[in-house]
């Protein structure tokens, strides 16, 4: 068994799987980091991802264009986030409930629309999905080539988005506004930043990320839409946001760790380790908790998180 673990194929495979499986989680985590940095916890993430997965898939199914599907998924995510913005930003309703409401609503709507469009055939309709792109030359490098450089275009885009979101948050004017609003909306308001508008834009950006993260599952990783396709990956992204201390790079690292553990547990099963398979399934969650314990002491929650901003509310 040890020899199997150290084989080139095994290592290449597990790295490749880690990157694939972490793509939707990282993408969703980046989206959640943007919204939470602006002070809004978006628990609509799971439903938004499912909605993106459905709309993206249906768009591709009817147009044949994968990129149109991605675009539609992003727009679908934005649309839901705008509802979230009305509820939690403009009306100042509890972020917890607004988000969960969005998740309930969007999950139902996603499947409802899917059912209306495709009916219920015995064999679900499929599309021709994204295929992995081997980057010339780089993909020939042993181990790294077959893993890092043979991925879906959406995975490459996700990697690019990690530094992009980092740069946005820490190096741009808009990013400074976002961070300020998340920490102290009053401070931002008094220097003329439109708090609610900025939060709305952050929610919209996050929603686009969630939508595409969902669509990654139906347009790249899979080629069909099935009801449970998100499978809690949105909730994991919430955990990774905190694990990463609201930092895009650390959040992505969290996503990678989670993806790795998930890839590993499947491989351990394949190797015939004789444990109840539920023990394997538990591993990623348990280790994430332990990882959280180790980073928690320096956690820096955006001080404005969960608090709606209303000018005339006392004690704001």
């Amino acid at each position: 068994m040890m020899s199997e673990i150290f084989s080139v194929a095994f290592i290449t495979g597990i790295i490749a799987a880690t990157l694939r499986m972490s793509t939707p989680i990282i993408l969703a985590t980046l989206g959640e980091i943007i919204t939470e940095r602006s002070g809004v916890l978006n628990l609509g993430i799971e439903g938004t991802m499912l909605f993106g997965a459905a709309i993206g898939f249906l768009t591709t199914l009817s147009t044949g264009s994968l990129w149109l599907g991605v675009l539609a998924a992003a727009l679908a995510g934005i649309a839901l986030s705008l509802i979230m913005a009305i509820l939690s930003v403009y009306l100042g309703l509890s972020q917890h409930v607004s988000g969960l409401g969005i998740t309930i609503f969007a999950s139902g709507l996603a499947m409802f629309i899917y059912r209306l469009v495709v009916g219920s055939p015995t064999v679900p309709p499929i599309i021709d999905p994204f295929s992995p792109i081997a980057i010339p030359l780089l993909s020939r490098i042993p181990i790294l080539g077959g893993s890092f450089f043979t991925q879906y275009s959406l995975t490459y885009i996700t990697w690019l988005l990690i530094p992009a979101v980092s740069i946005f948050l820490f190096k741009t004017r808009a990013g400074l506004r976002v961070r300020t609003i998340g920490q102290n909306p009053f401070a931002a308001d008094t220097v003329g930043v439109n708090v609610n508008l900025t939060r709305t834009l952050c929610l919209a950006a996050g929603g686009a990320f969630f939508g595409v993260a969902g669509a990654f599952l139906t347009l790249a990783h899979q080629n069909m839409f099935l009801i449970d396709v998100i499978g809690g990956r949105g909730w994991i992204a919430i955990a990774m946001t905190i694990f990463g201390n609201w930092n895009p790079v650390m959040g992505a690292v969290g996503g990678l760790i989670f993806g790795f553990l998930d890839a590993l547990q499947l491989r351990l099963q394949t190797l015939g380790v004789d444990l109840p398979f539920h023990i394997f399934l538990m591993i990623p969650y348990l280790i994430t908790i332990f990882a959280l314990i180790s980073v928690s002491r320096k956690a820096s929650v955006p001080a404005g998180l969960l608090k709606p901003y209303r000018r005339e509310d006392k004690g704001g």
Partner: protein
Amino acid sequence: DAEQADDGVFKMAAIFQTSIEEPWDGAIHVAALKIAEEMGLTYEFAENVKAADFSKVVREYSERGFDFIIGDAFLAGEEPSRAVAKDYPDIAYAFGSEFDIQAPNYSVFDNWIHEPAYLSGVIAGMMTESNVLGVVAAIPIPEVNRLVGAFKAGALSVNSNVTVKVAMIGSWFDPPKAKEAAVSMIEAGADFLFAERFGVFEAAKEAGVYAFGNMSDQNALAPDVVISSCVWDMYPVLKNSIDAIQNGTWKAQNLKDWSMMAAGGSSLAPYHGLESKIPADVKAKVADLQKQIMAGTFVVPVIETPTVSD
């Protein structure tokens, strides 16, 4: 309820715990639709019935005077459906169940596609070059174990060198995870995959290995890789039950024989476009076994314990 007055039309209802896209319940639903059209009977169904609501729904249909109520009872539906059936001895019930019948009116059925699974194993065993086969399945329950066990037995019957990798994804529906499990098997050298769940074909397609579908003919999902499928057809079960109810000969019974190959309740799907890729001796072997199974001269072993990865 005036609306519900008995107008003499035979009424059948189905209760599903999952959505009808789920292949197991889907198979029942498709057969029910077909038979309803053919025989001109009324058919209603309830899908996504949650465990806690099962009892309410069975009772509702029973109250409304349906003649024949079917569905999947496994886990959540067992106790409630049996309890309701007791209250309505004149209604015929037939549920997918792992337990015994309940006289006088409650029959059980299950999908029995271990025979085609065995044949799939034979194909894979004969054609494999790596001698490694993979199975991606949901969770280790008897009907899943039967498939895995039969597939492995079939493969071993023609090739004593094969090893079979098995992974459970832990839920009925997690295609991304199923795909990753399949990928891990391909990395471990598997060149034939048995896809008990959705998600496997994508991996097979990317790696160019063959796969077997399950429950219905799934060749359309990936024509280049789905070499065949184990097909379950509920039609014989339903047809024979309805005939019995209408003739007044219905009694509680295990309907499993109607799901066997011999009764047309299961089959190995056609090879479709991959016909030419299969060596003639393999096809001959499969055809021969098929004949023996139909004739009852060969009995595929029923293995209900979980199969662990080799």
